[in-house]
């Protein structure tokens, strides 16, 4: 700790989890995150942990369910098609109110797609992808250092709210190497108590982990309780980076890899005296609605440009937030392609920002 080391994104995922007190990993190989399970297979036994290569992502997510039910910090990582297979299990985990951490290193889709970076699983993560009324606390880092922090925080938030948390990255973040520093390590003796966990009845009252209730009123009451919890999350856990957005005429909105590229765009354009800023959502759920509303109200703000590696998913949440107050433009790349700063700059310069 305290020193910079050069690591690959997918391996950083693994070490971040261990630093957050995770000693269990269940996963299934899929590119571009294979280095995460490989890292855990090697590293977990060194720290007294357990790695199991599941027979499928369906099995992996259900192994998480069992381990989390028994009170342990547990994580899996996968990429788009694998996360699709996990949706039923994720819904059960949310319904049973269990803390787990999931990582989706998003790749090109739909279907098998390819292994290039993409952000096409935004809807699946924040709306979200399984059955019923639930949400994943969804955090999106733009570089590996931030990924370390967000994995750590994802474990904390999952435990605090008894809810699954998703760290949403992409094929680029999974594969790049960067110098990182692990500056936090969870003291295992300070992990939160989980009196609700199934650890054997052992002379106390029975613990039941379940999302099932035949009684309509009781199930509705549980749903209300879950929604009450979500209201607190929305109040307390919104995260974003506002980069020269306060006084900007043109505000870019982008997360993760595209957020990072847009940050470079802001630097370049600011050096040309162009009034551009960036609002980078870090929590995708809860979404930073309020700050977008406030930015939209500013007289200086002429409009927004949302940039994503998708056909336009987060842009819908930006539209809901801005609520027609200012124009919103969109630029998306797909298929594993990533826009260059120049590509985005050209678009900013061709948009008619004055005329509404």
């Amino acid at each position, binding site marked *: 700790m305290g020193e910079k080391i050069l690591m690959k994104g997918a391996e950083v995922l693994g070490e971040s989890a261990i630093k957050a007190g995770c000693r*269990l990993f269940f996963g299934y190989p899929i590119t571009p995150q294979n280095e995460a399970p490989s890292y855990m297979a090697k590293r977990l036994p060194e720290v007294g942990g357990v790695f199991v290569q599941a*027979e499928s992502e369906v099995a992996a997510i*259900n192994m998480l369910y*069992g381990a989390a039910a028994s009170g342990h910090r547990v994580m899996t990582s996968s990429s788009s098609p694998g996360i699709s297979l996990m949706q039923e299990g994720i819904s059960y985990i949310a319904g049973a109110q269990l803390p787990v951490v999931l990582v989706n290193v998003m790749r090109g889709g739909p279907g098998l797609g390819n292994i290039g970076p993409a952000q096409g699983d935004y809807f699946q993560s924040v709306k979200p992808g399984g059955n019923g009324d639930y949400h994943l606390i969804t955090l999106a880092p733009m570089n590996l250092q931030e990924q370390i922090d967000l994995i750590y925080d994802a474990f904390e938030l999952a435990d605090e709210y008894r809810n699954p948390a998703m760290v949403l990255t992409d094929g680029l973040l999974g594969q790049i190497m960067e110098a990182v520093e692990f500056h936090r390590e969870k003291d295992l003796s300070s992990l939160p108590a989980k009196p609700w966990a199934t650890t*054997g009845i*052992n002379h106390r009252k029975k613990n*039941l*982990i*379940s999302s*099932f209730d035949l009684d309509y009123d009781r199930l509705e009451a549980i749903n209300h309780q879950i929604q009450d919890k979500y209201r607190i999350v929305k109040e307390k856990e919104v995260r974003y980076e506002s980069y020269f957005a306060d006084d900007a005429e043109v505000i870019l909105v982008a997360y993760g890899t595209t957020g990072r590229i847009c940050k470079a765009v802001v630097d370049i354009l600011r050096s040309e005296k162009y009034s551009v800023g960036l609002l980078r959502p870090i929590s995708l759920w809860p979404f930073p609605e309020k700050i977008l509303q406030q930015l939209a109200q500013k007289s200086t703000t002429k409009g927004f440009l949302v940039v994503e590696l998708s056909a336009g998913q987060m842009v819908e949440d930006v539209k809901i937030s801005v609520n027609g107050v200012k124009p919103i433009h969109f630029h998306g790349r797909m298929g594993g392609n990533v826009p260059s700063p120049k590509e985005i700059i050209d678009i900013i310069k061709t948009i008619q920002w004055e005329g509404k």
Partner: protein
Amino acid sequence: MSPELKQIFKPSPILTPIQRSFCPGCTHGVIHRLVAECLEELQLAEKTVLVIPVGCATLAVDYFELDTIQSAHGRAPAVATGVKRSNPDLFVVTYQGDGDLASIGTAEIVHAANRGEKITTIFVNNGIYGMTGGQMAPTTLIGWKTETSPYGREASREGNPIRISEMLSQLNGPAYIARTAVNSPKAVLGTKRAIKKAFTAQMKGLGFSLVEILSTCPTNWGFSPVQSLKRIDEETIPYYPLGEFKAVEGL
């Protein structure tokens, strides 16, 4: 000599004293009783985690005074793997129907067995989907009419009934695999012996264990409870022979 009253039968303290919602004559209830008796006699209840499936057995979330996890359809062996691997001192039991285990959950049971997960599966094979109203299961016998095999199951169309115990006993991971029935007092006692052996396999850390119990579904078979018990002898056992298919040394 004053007449002394001796209690020779009492409710199991592991079974929650509430009314059961199973249909009259359904043998799920008998199997619950046997599981509870074995856990009690082997003094396992305090450290047991019971993994409940989707099917008529889902109702059992309310029936056992045990720490209990309700799992998705077919996934109980994966859930149990997560429990046991994270907490090896726990005693972990899955209770699954034949639609759950032999259809949607085939991958999970095969791989949990093959990894030799130190868990025990109680596999309740009634040859039909009870909970959803009597559809064909992979275990439904040739000729049986169900909601989704209304002309009777035909091998050329629906394939042959799957023999899970025989199949799993080919693997190295299982320590104990047996098939039993509960359609007579003698069969009930045999089932209890098998469950105890399966539990012992887990207690000794020998590997995966499973007891397949031939069960009834009077409601969806369209048979009376008594006829259902007879049907087990006449039709089910001839195709699904009783016995131990695997019992490793040290059991």
